[in-house]
């Protein structure tokens, strides 16, 4: 693809990304304003009175008309200010900033392992098509993908943590550790020990897609004429598989990875809850349960932005990796 063509594509996709984010945030804003109940309910207590309520509403900025709230909200959003938590009374951006790295690490680690495994296993299974191992491996891959994550997680937790005590039961770091920063955490074996179970649960759940995708595209590619040609050229099996088959087959898998990264950030909600993993998903669940809508809204926007961004990245990645994409297909 020509360089300028690609740049144009990038610009176009980024433009659309901005539009998507704007629509998402607006929809989110409206959604949350429709939420029944008002935030002061969270403070219900016999000492709670009308005056308290008004003061609270004012401090939440909820005493203004909707359009004004919207303008304020968008204005603040542009400055990265997501408001203050109704319940926890801290800036939402700070809650999210604490949580996002954890989610990203969990997702990236799990996704990378799942994809590494899925790609290798998928390619292997593609070569084994029609053999006995398929009858076992494919149902197994599908079954782990079919299990509710929390159920899988609870079973792992019960087995490996409660019964055997090999892994901690939750959280990201040991109690009272000084592992505040991401760098510290990544360097600590304890962190990885805490990461193991939630990551394993995710890996079990996530590996099915790359495995099946890799297998299917591999099968498709292996049937392509240019693979037959590569054989005719007398190229080594290794060259054929790595240089031609895998490279072509990987295209959709790489794209799926980017998409998966976006989707997982929002989809980890359940796993984060089971394993008390201090990530964005859990923040969101708690906020929704507690009707803490600045937080729920912030987390939702953050997740959507990550998702939309990763969707865009996936698109661009595909265009960057596949020289054919930019050519307008003839009708």
């Amino acid at each position, binding site marked *: 693809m020509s360089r300028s063509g690609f740049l144009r594509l990038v610009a176009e996709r980024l433009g*659309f990304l901005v539009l*998507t984010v704007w*629509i*998402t945030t607006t929809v989110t804003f409206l*959604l*949350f304003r*429709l*939420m*029944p109940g008002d935030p002061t309910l969270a403070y219900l207590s016999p000492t709670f009175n009308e005056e308290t309520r008004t003061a609270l509403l004012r401090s939440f900025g909820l005493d203004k008309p909707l359009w004004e709230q919207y303008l304020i909200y968008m204005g603040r959003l542009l400055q990265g200010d997501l408001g203050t938590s109704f319940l926890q009374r801290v800036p939402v951006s700070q809650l999210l900033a604490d949580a996002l790295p954890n989610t990203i690490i969990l997702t990236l680690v799990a996704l990378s392992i799942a994809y590494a495994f899925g790609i290798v296993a998928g390619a292997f299974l593609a070569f084994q*098509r*029609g053999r006995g191992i398929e*009858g076992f491996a*494919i*149902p197994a891959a*599908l*079954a782990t*993908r*079919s*299990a*509710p*994550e*929390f*159920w899988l997680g*609870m*079973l792992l937790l*019960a087995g490996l943590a*409660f019964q055997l005590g090999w892994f901690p039961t939750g959280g990201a770091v040991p109690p009272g550790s000084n592992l505040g920063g991401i760098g510290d955490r990544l360097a600590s074996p304890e962190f990885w020990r805490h990461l193991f179970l939630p990551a394993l649960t995710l890996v079990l759940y996530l590996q099915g897609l790359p495995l*099946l995708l890799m297998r*299917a595209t591999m*099968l*498709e590619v292996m*049937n392509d004429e240019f693979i037959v040609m590569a054989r005719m050229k007398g190229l080594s099996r290794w060259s054929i598989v790595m240089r031609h088959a895998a490279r072509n087959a990987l295209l959709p898998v790489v794209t799926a990875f980017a998409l998966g990264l*976006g*989707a997982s*950030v*929002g*989809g980890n*909600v*359940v796993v984060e*809850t089971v394993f008390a993993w201090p990530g964005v*998903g859990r923040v*969101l*669940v708690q906020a*929704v*349960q507690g*009707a803490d809508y600045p937080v*729920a809204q912030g*987390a*939702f926007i953050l*997740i*959507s932005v990550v*998702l*939309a961004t990763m*969707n865009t990245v996936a698109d661009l990645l595909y265009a960057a990796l596949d020289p054919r994409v930019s050519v307008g297909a003839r*009708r």
Partner: protein
Amino acid sequence: MRAARAAWRFLRSEPFAFVGAAIYALIVVTAIFADKLAPHDPREILRVGRRVARYLPISPEHWLGTTSSGRDVLSQLIWGTRSALQVGLTAAIVVVAIGTLMGLLAGYLGGWVDKLITRLADIVLSMPFLPFMLVLAALTTPGTTVVVACVALLLWPNTARVIRSQVLSLRERAWVEAARVTGCSNTRIMFVHILPQVLPLAALYGSVAIGWAILAEASASFLGFGDPDTISWGVMLQEAYANQALGRGAWNWFTPPGLAIVSMVLAGFMISRGSEKLLFPKLADK
């Protein structure tokens, strides 16, 4: 009739699809006869004397024991098929209907309709599924309607994309042009000529959507946004979790609904996996 025979031939030749279809069949039969099959009323609080029959272990009377609130696990499991089917099927039908319609319109009409629908789909795809469902559940009444609505609102783009690309290639087929030349209106071409070609594909996506819906319902229930009024596997799991069935070692309560979910979702995957040859016709030559 021809279709039925073709379907049967297909199942016979594809063990995966066969197993999947068999599981579905079993679930459907169970759901139909749930009231006959279930030994107890799944909602009834069973008593032992004045006391609630909590946590009874597996016994001839209660094949899977009882729950913390004194209900028969097996009966709940059996009744759960109804809600699973209801959630799964409505979600699948809605997804397939919306997705197919959108895909068909976008693919066939092209132009601004296509642009609009693809853009819309892109935007919808950047709505995180689970979070969206939680928020929607919090905004409205939690329960299966929300699950179905979410699946329908957020999952149609997947089907629509596939259908669209299928339609894009179909509309280039000469027989579509032939239909135009022989006087067919666009509507007729779309719904009489093209639609039947993409329906099998849509149905496959439907079978995957069933799984999605079931899992979504389970996750929503787990996080406390299920409809406790219905007896569903998700709600069962949630109850078991909330009442610490695992901590009690009540595996008889915690595992069966999970396995039921796995098998139903698996069935959908199996069917679509078994249909690989339909999706990648090249494989059939191998």
